């Protein structure tokens, strides 16, 4: 670990370390504009290019996204190549199968080359979901990709069976590969998501900061920290303030910003509900001072969105962001101790070992960090969370984490029905109006038949 740098020096260091992705994000933020970004990936180069140009042309301050396909995520590049040959549909862009040269040409054709001042007119991030991504990182570095994301915990526990120790090793190599480049690409921690829902904010904040510290430990200084919209606007506001405060204290020598994800759990199924939850996330991003937002579209609950649907969502988000920037504070942050809990989790985890990577391995091994409901073999899965009557996400069980959990007299272990109700909390909150006349949904639980009507 580098020694902490005093804030004035940190600012100088930050200015010096700004990469081509962060330069764009910080520039927009200084102008009072929220950077918005889609989730978007197509298998063939022409459609991917069309999609990126669509985003670039949107009436919004947008960065582009290339989302990769499932084969590439699990390093099955042969299957991806075969799909490209046979024309079989892939659920994203097979970057390694296309190769660095074709990817570089694609990026240059939509972003323009890196300018003399080191910036891009339209930087693009690659989003993937790979726990062991070294071959992918080699290809991204060779292609000159501006930014990517993930982390040794956030892409291991929810999406793979790889041991955390293997993911820590792989991500350390990836970070060192990036750090060795003359103009290193930006890396975003996905630690603020963790199964998309029912992970209380303090753990999301702690994991985001811990992954940021891991990136620092392996030589990176151009990073972002994430947080995913949960169930309560005031609590989310408190959580992002906690994330910014903790990052300011622990990552002062890095150039960092915060990226918010529109809700990643069970999504509203109606267009009105979808735009309302997106709107709430945009307002949260602006109120919390977040620099970047990754949006979702009304297609989310049903299928992969089209280019036009993505552009619509970005333009909608940009217009809400402009509106919110002109308003006063309408939502107050809660005061539930998110910062104190997150700081405790970060500090006590770091005490477990001399390096951040080893500390993360040991922390999960002994349940000191424990993601609620996560079935990965290296997660203790003793902790539990619930949505309280006010809509706040709370701990029900701490497991072996060093947290104090208030024992409500009425609380019982969550039932299957209760789990569905909690998972569907935002879906119901935002779809309520349009569903008054009834709506059929896929997985119906007998106890919820009241919501079915004459549709």
């Amino acid at each position, binding site marked *: 670990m580098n020694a902490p740098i005093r804030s004035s020096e940190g600012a100088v260091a930050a200015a010096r370390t700004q990469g081509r992705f962060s330069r764009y994000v910080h520039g927009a933020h200084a102008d009072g504009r929220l950077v918005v970004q889609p989730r978007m990936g197509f298998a063939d180069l022409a459609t991917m290019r069309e999609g990126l140009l669509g985003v670039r042309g949107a009436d919004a301050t947008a960065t582009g996204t290339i989302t990769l396909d*499932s084969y590439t995520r*699990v390093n099955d590049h042969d299957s991806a190549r075969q799909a490209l040959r046979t024309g079989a549909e892939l659920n994203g862009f097979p970057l390694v199968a296309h190769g660095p040269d074709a990817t570089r040409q694609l990026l240059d054709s939509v972003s323009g080359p890196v300018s003399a001042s080191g910036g891009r007119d339209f930087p693009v991030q690659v989003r993937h*979901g790979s726990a062991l991504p070294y071959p992918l990182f080699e290809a991204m570095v060779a292609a000159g990709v501006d930014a990517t994301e993930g982390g040794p915990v956030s892409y291991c526990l*929810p*999406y*793979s*069976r790889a041991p955390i120790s293997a993911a820590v090793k792989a991500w350390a190599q990836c970070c060192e590969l990036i750090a060795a480049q003359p103009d290193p690409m930006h890396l975003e921690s996905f630690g603020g998501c963790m*199964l998309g829902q029912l992970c209380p904010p303090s753990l999301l904040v702690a994991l985001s900061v811990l992954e940021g510290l891991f990136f620092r430990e392996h030589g990176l200084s151009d990073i972002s920290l994430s947080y995913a919209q949960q169930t309560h606007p005031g609590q989310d506001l408190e959580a992002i303030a906690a994330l910014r405060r903790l990052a300011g204290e622990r990552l002062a020598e890095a150039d960092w910003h915060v990226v918010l994800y529109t809700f990643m759990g*069970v999504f509203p199924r109606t267009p009105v509900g979808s735009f309302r939850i997106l709107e709430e996330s945009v307002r949260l991003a602006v109120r919390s001072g977040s620099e970047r937002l990754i949006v979702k579209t009304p297609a989310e609950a*049903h*299928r992969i969105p089209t280019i036009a649907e993505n552009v619509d969502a970005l333009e909608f988000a940009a217009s809400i962001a402009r509106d919110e920037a002109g308003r006063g504070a309408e939502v107050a942050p809660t005061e539930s101790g998110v910062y104190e809990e997150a700081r405790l989790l970060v500090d006590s985890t770091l005490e477990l070992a001399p390096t951040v990577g080893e500390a993360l391995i040991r922390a999960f091994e002994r349940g000191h960090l424990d993601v609620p*409901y*996560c*079935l*990965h*073999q290296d997660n203790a899965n003793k902790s539990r969370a619930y949505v309280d009557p006010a809509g706040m996400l709370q701990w029900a069980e701490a497991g072996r984490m060093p947290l104090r959990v208030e024992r409500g007299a009425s609380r019982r272990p*969550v*039932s*299957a029905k209760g*789990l*569905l109700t909690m*998972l569907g909390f935002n879906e119901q909150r935002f779809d309520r109006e349009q569903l008054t006349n009834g709506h*059929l949904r*896929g*997985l*119906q*639980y*007998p*106890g919820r038949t009241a919501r*079915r009507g004459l549709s």
Partner: protein
Amino acid sequence: MSQVMLPAKRFVVSSVSSDAHMWNLVFLQLLLEEQGAHVTNLGACVPDDLIIEECRRSRPDALVISTVNGHGHLDGLRLIRRIREEPDLADLRVVIGGKLGVRGAENIVFAEELALSGYDAVFEADGGIENFQEFLGTLDAPAERPALASSGVAA
């Protein structure tokens, strides 16, 4: 809904090899445990070999496969063919449910092939959880394969 299975039944719950979704598995475990069952939950992205190994080790009353990434008709088919090739697992009750393809309501077209390939029951998401509950009630009766349990019609 609240009926308890006696004596306690044992289940192995699992996803298929390419599916990283987890909440469906968490839900099924709770649903089964509420009815007094003992559940071994193998989680997401489970290779075929690991599922077979666990079934051989724990000899469950049923193997419950749940998948929602749309590859169920591919991964699930390969898995059941592997299982039925194992002589000692020929009698194992195996069911599959979830979003079995990427065609939404038309996914029901995959149900017949899955059932004919050796699943004791197939549940498309639109069929609702009631059909699965009915299946649980039949566990003490001998298996009658092939059976096509999903109607594709919401109850």
